[in-house]
């Protein structure tokens, strides 16, 4: 890079001699500015690594404590207990679904009546509260104000009565009576209308009646539920002791760290009094090495009990599966029962394996550094700030990011490329001059504005649409959560369409016109030319556009933070296409949500930087691949 290599600089003209060093200084000034980009990139990498790499040893230590304190041991049993609770819940749901299904008519009637009443109170509630609050405020009984409020209330009441929900399961007569009773309600009446309560009572009575023939099932479920109580009490007993141990170990760790920081602060303190004070504090905070052997031995004494509880639970479970009815009459109930029956063998198999696992568990088995890396990369839980144990598993976040990107790209690729093809090949110049700026202007919309629209408008609209009867065939409808993968994906699609559109349009534009001309000269129609000649020629450019769109989607933060629903869980893929309507959390979202809140330098803080490193690497790979395609097109 030395200028001597440049032939023009080798022998400067003597007129230039005086300005020579000056010129060179200017040149180096500009060069150093250009070099700044490299410096920034290097700084990004260095600082991400500096903060991030400390994560793995820190997490290793946490996992070590998890093992030494015996939390891991308790979790072996707890896993089965949780599975037992889940199974109980499924059976319970099946039971209630059966009952509710059998008295569906009463349920519908009761629900419709109360829905009608609720819709009415929703609308009139605020004005009614005003009337009530102010007639109670005896201190200043202002009649004029009260009159105003009452008039308001009446107005709102008339409006609400004019737009009541449909009640297909109530007779005309009943509906009219109900509306009449609502109309004639006193302002300060707090009870539900008589008809609503009657229907509710009828429903309860029907439930009781339908429960009669199902008593066998009820007692089976109850006996299954109580079969877990032995294990449950054992687990909670052990939980208390291991938490105490863990706190002791962590306390010692903290004290040790404190001592070091206090000593460091003492050595830095200028005031001798202050220094002495800090030194004394440091000395007193010298921790005894916590005793972990004793509690662990006590814990391990529970082994036989644990195994016994597991065997008992297994025996009970094998017995109970035989007592369950083979099927239930109601569709939903039968589905749930089938699901329970399906997972039952796995549950029993797990229970059978557990005693071996309990016996094999060793508190002093080492936790290698690779464990912390692999449990980060393949961990299924991201649990932080909890009482029990923090886990940093990337999978739920990565899955969320990926699912959102899939939705966004599935929507954006056809529209973006389709629009590009249309604008470039088919549109009149007038259309081009209108459509292009509009689509390009979408790019200028800040992402936080899209997130705002998503949370305030789009999510609610989507949920209302999902309640339409004509759309119930779509899996996942009606929506459980208004903020979900699909909501976020739609907004991100809108964001990435301009990127894909303009890059794809460029790519198509760059195809030499001779190709199209030759094709047309051979008699091909315009559509044939476009799809058989132009698009194949621009293919790698279009692919690059798609990849860059993907890079944009996966790196986007504000929309997913606001709209994705923030549930840190791998989506439940058994729901089929309905999976796309579940909430999730993302790689970018978790950084934005948690970075401002975690103590600096903690393991959690560092974990967020590791997520950043991962994101950085993924996006760079995507972009590098895209640019390779672009370069390929140029040649």
């Amino acid at each position, binding site marked *: 890079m030395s200028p001597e290599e440049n032939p023009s600089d080798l022998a400067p003209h003597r007129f230039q001699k005086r300005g020579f060093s000056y010129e060179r200084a200017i040149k180096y000034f500009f060069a150093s500015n250009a070099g700044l980009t490299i410096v920034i990139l290097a700084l990004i990498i260095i600082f991400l690594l500096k903060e991030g790499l400390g994560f793995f040893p820190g997490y290793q230590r946490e996992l070590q404590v998890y093992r030494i304190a015996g939390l891991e041991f308790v979790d072996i049993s707890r896993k089965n207990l949780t599975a037992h*609770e889940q199974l*109980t*819940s499924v059976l*319970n*749901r099946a039971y*209630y*679904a059966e009952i*509710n299904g059998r008295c569906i008519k009463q*349920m519908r009637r009761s*629900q419709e009546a*109360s*829905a009608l009443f*609720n819709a009415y109170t*929703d609308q009139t*509630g*605020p004005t009614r509260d005003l009337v009530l609050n102010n007639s109670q405020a005896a201190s200043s009984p202002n009649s004029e104000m009260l009159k105003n409020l009452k008039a308001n209330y009446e107005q709102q009441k008339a409006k609400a009565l004019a737009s009541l929900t449909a009640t297909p399961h109530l007779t005309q007569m009943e509906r009219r009576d109900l509306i009449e009773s609502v109309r004639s309600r006193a302002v300060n009446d707090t009870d539900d209308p008589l008809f609503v309560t009657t229907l*509710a009572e009828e429903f309860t009575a029907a439930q009781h009646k339908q429960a009669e023939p199902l008593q066998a099932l009820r007692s089976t479920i109850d006996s299954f539920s109580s079969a877990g109580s032995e294990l449950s009490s054992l687990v*909670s007993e052990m*939980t208390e002791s291991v*938490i105490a141990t863990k706190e002791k170990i962590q*306390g010692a760790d*903290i004290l040790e760290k*404190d001592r070091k*920081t*206090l000593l460091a*602060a003492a050595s830095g303190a200028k005031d001798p009094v202050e220094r002495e004070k800090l030194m004394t*504090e440091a000395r007193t*905070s010298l921790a005894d090495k916590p005793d972990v052997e004793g509690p662990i031995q006590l814990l391990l004494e529970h082994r036989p009990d644990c195994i016994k509880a597991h065997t008992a639970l297994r025996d009970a479970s094998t017995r109970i599966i035989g007592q369950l009815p083979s099927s239930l009459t109601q569709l939903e109930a039968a589905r749930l029962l089938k699901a329970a029956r399906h997972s039952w063998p796995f549950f029993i198999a797990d229970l059978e394996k557990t005693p071996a696992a309990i016996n094999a568990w060793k508190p002093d088995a080492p936790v290698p550094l690779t464990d912390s890396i692999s449990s980060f990369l393949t961990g299924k*839980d991201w*649990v*932080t*700030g*909890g*009482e*029990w144990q923090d886990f940093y598993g990337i999978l*739920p976040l990565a899955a969320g990011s990926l699912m959102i990107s899939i939705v966004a790209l599935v929507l954006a690729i056809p529209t973006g490329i389709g629009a590009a093809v249309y604008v470039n090949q088919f549109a009149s110049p007038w259309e081009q001059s209108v459509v292009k700026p509009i689509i390009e202007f979408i790019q200028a919309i800040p992402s936080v504005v899209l997130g705002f629209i998503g949370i305030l408008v789009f999510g*609610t609209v989507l*949920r209302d649409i999902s309640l339409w009867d004509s759309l119930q065939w779509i899996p996942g409808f009606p929506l*459980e*959560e*208004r*903020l979900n993968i699909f909501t976020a994906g739609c907004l991100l699609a809108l964001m990435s369409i301009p990127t894909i559109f303009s890059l794809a349009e460029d790519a198509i534009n760059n195809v030499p016109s001779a190709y199209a001309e030759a094709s047309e000269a051979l008699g091909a129609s315009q559509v044939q030319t476009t799809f058989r000649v132009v698009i194949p020629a621009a293919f790698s450019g279009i692919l690059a556009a798609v990849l860059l769109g993907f890079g944009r989607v996966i790196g986007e933060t504000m929309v997913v933070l606001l709209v994705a*629903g*923030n*549930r*840190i*869980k791998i989506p439940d893929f058994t729901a089929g296409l309905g999976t796309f309507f579940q*909430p999730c*959390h993302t790689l970018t979202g978790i950084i934005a*949500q*948690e970075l*401002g*809140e*975690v*103590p*600096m330098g903690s393991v959690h803080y560092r974990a967020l930087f590791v997520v950043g490193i991962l994101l950085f690497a993924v996006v760079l790979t995507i972009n590098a691949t895209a640019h390779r395609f672009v370069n390929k097109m140029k040649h």
Partner: protein
Amino acid sequence: MKTISKFFTAAAMISMAGAQTLSIKGSDTLGAKLVPQLAESFKASGNKNVKFEIAAEGSTTAFPALANGTAQIGMSSRKVKDDERTFCRTKGVYIKEHPICHDMICVIVNKNSPLAKLTADQVAKIFTGQIKDWSEIGGAPGPISIYTRNTSSGTYKDWQKLAMGGRDYPSSSLKMAGNEQIAQEVAKNKNGIGYVGLAYSKTSGTKAITIDGIEPVAANAKKYPYARLCYLYAPDKPSAEADAFMSYVESGPGQDIVRKVGFIPVKDL
């Protein structure tokens, strides 16, 4: 030499964040509603030249900010932990605790839910994910959606201790940025359940649940199972502005605002 030292003085000023501003950081429960209003009425009561910066990201953020001197007052909906206190200590900050109000964590459900009361055991089972469907406890059938605060919140941890017996939240729970957002989502989801501070329990579209027969209203604060104290933390040698603000908060007018916003003044219990 003189000019150089002048330059350095100027440069040093850059490094000192404006000292006359009163920066308050920490809990969302306190910082989203109560503290801004306290600040505004504090200014209205003749302290016009004090500048406030309020960031309410969660109780956990209060103590590092106090330690680093980026905040003069920390808000927390839970007691300071020992390690946080020591951390501040190592940075030369002795923090002093000022209880400012009582709060009750209220369980809220959608207004149209037929449920009005739950037992503490049912609440624990719902929030730990053992009960997944409303029909299991006598509601209209529908999968339960749990809305919780995010992990840095003091309420998140308090709730785990008070209501869930220390067990973890299920992964199916949705993490929300603040009390208002929980209330808003519950108001929009007929199968939703969540917890909020007392001041947010009257949000339209939601209703607060009676726990073990005790209604979550201020009068029941002593009996209610999920009640707690909220604190402001300040260094033991606060700046003049911080000191004035703290004494305003603890004074009669300050505590009136506490009551008005929906918390329970310290002296009421």
